[in-house]
């Protein structure tokens, strides 16, 4: 392939030739690949929305309970007003003062995203450090692992009162909820990843006289990176789920608050509109993480292509 490309460059300099055309074709195919991905994404969503619309059209979905996309996306400006939870809590502030509806949507999205991000970062750093330490120090393993295993099946809901007792209301309890929901699983996942490292790689380092510290930093950590990023991606979705629960109780503004408001005012359109916004945010987050994954894990072969040929 490299040879073809080099020939192509020479050919292009000398004027149009067949190899140059081949190179251009490959280049355009790379562009097509991204385009086709977008196309398939749109198609996938349209299919889902289409079925929903069809159900509405046939009268199966009551628009008051399950408003289809064309209804809940119809009056975005109207929906956006409900996001203005920031000023409502201040006594003496008029409903229409403060940020514009568009700004409110942005503030709400930003606040929730920041909580997810902060929780995810804190949980990952803590969990990976603890997980590595559990395998590094045997006494730490014996001392800490039973408690972690004991606490990991506890639902985040059960932590909610604890979060409020400890942190009251505001950002802290929401971030705490995200951390506590992810931390225990991520510790166990880290340990699992360490145990799965190819023993030959560790043995190679040992025969070369590597110390325990060097084996951990130079072999085990890079070897578990791919798995840890996969764990992070899965937990990202978990973080988005938990943050709504946390926000629905005692935070000034956030997506969870909006959902709560929609529930209390019986406003299905607002529920679905918020769900759509969360979906788009989560999707974007995941996409960014996948990009980062490809950058960081340059050495991983693309198995997906092979599976496609089956």
């Amino acid at each position: 392939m490299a040879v073809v490309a080099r020939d192509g460059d020479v050919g292009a300099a000398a004027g149009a030739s067949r190899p140059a055309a081949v190179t251009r074709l490959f280049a355009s195919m790379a562009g097509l690949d991204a385009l086709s991905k977008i196309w398939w994404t749109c198609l996938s969503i349209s299919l889902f929305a289409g079925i929903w619309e069809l159900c509405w059209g046939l009268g199966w979905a009551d628009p008051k309970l399950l408003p289809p996309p064309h209804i809940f996306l119809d009056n975005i400006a109207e929906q956006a007003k409900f996001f203005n939870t920031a000023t409502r809590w201040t006594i003496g502030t008029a409903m229409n003062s403060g940020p514009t509806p568009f700004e409110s949507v942005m503030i709400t999205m930003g606040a929730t995203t920041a909580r997810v991000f902060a929780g995810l970062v804190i949980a990952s750093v803590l969990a990976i450090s603890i997980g590595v330490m559990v395998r590094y120090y045997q006494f730490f393993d014996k001392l800490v692992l039973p408690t972690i295993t004991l606490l990991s099946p506890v639902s985040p809901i059960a932590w909610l009162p604890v979060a409020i007792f400890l942190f009251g209301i505001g950002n802290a309890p929401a971030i705490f909820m995200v951390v506590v929901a992810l931390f225990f699983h991520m510790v166990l996942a880290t340990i699992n990843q360490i145990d799965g490292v190819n023993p030959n790689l560790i043995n190679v380092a040992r025969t070369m006289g590597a110390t325990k510290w060097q084996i951990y930093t130079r072999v085990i950590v890079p070897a578990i990176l791919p798995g840890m990023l996969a764990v992070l991606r899965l937990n990202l979705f978990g973080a988005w789920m938990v943050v709504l629960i946390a926000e629905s109780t005692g935070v000034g503004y956030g997506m969870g608050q909006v959902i709560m408001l929609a529930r209390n005012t019986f406003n299905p359109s607002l529920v679905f509109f918020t769900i759509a916004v969360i979906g788009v945010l989560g999707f974007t987050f995941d996409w960014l993480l996948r990009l980062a994954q490809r950058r960081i894990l340059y050495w991983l072969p693309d198995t997906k292509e092979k599976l496609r040929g089956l």
Partner: protein
Amino acid sequence: MASDGAPHFSSKAAVVCRGVGKTWAAGTKRAHEALRDIDLDIQPGEFVVFLGPSGCGKSTLLYLISGLEDATEGQIWSFSDKVETPSPDRSLIFQETSLFPWLTVWQNVSFGLAIRGAAQAERRAVAAEALQRVGLSAAIDKRPDELSGGMRQRVAVARALAMRPKVLLMDEPFAALDVQTRARMQDFLLDVWRDSGASVLFVTHHIDEAVALADRVVVFTARPGRIKTIFPITLPRPRNLFSREVEAMRIQLTELLRDEVDRAFAEQEAIPA
């Protein structure tokens, strides 16, 4: 045997095993004996092949000599030092690719130097030299997944050579390669062995490979592995694998192995399901 602690060998020997045995999971219900009563002397610069049926413990012996595993019986010395931990003097090459996928070829080859804290320029120079010895100078900046199976094993050999080992331990290193590549790799290994001056301990279950490479073939019994016989081969290299002498050796070795393979099968069939 060596319980008085005094070494019963000449200190020149590259590897000395006295009464070496290994029982996996010793003291538990799953305990099984892999090796028993191994007495073996390997001279500096000698090429020794361990031949035996699968599961006879020949790889286990290699791990014991490398220091990655501890013997449950007996003692092992290498150049008069007792083997207790792994050492860069005894490099081990594995059957499966054991290159670090996140490092380039030269970073892989100089991994041992990086651990000692050598400067980058020195590491690259050493890697370049080692790669030249295995004929892979052009691949210096490539990543392992861009190489074929044979090339990867040559990089693994270069990585071992970069440590200037006195003993090269090879655990079926060419088992995953196709027949033609394997034959080329054997020639290549003999060249490398000749100019490194190291002793090579090479594990295989292929009689042809043993005949092509060895100064001495150590034939193992079925589990628990003991040394059945040590078979010297004095033919000059490169050996014509189709000559009458080689054919006679092949038949002899086949006979020696057949009994053991039969025994191994009988034992496996005797295990209650």
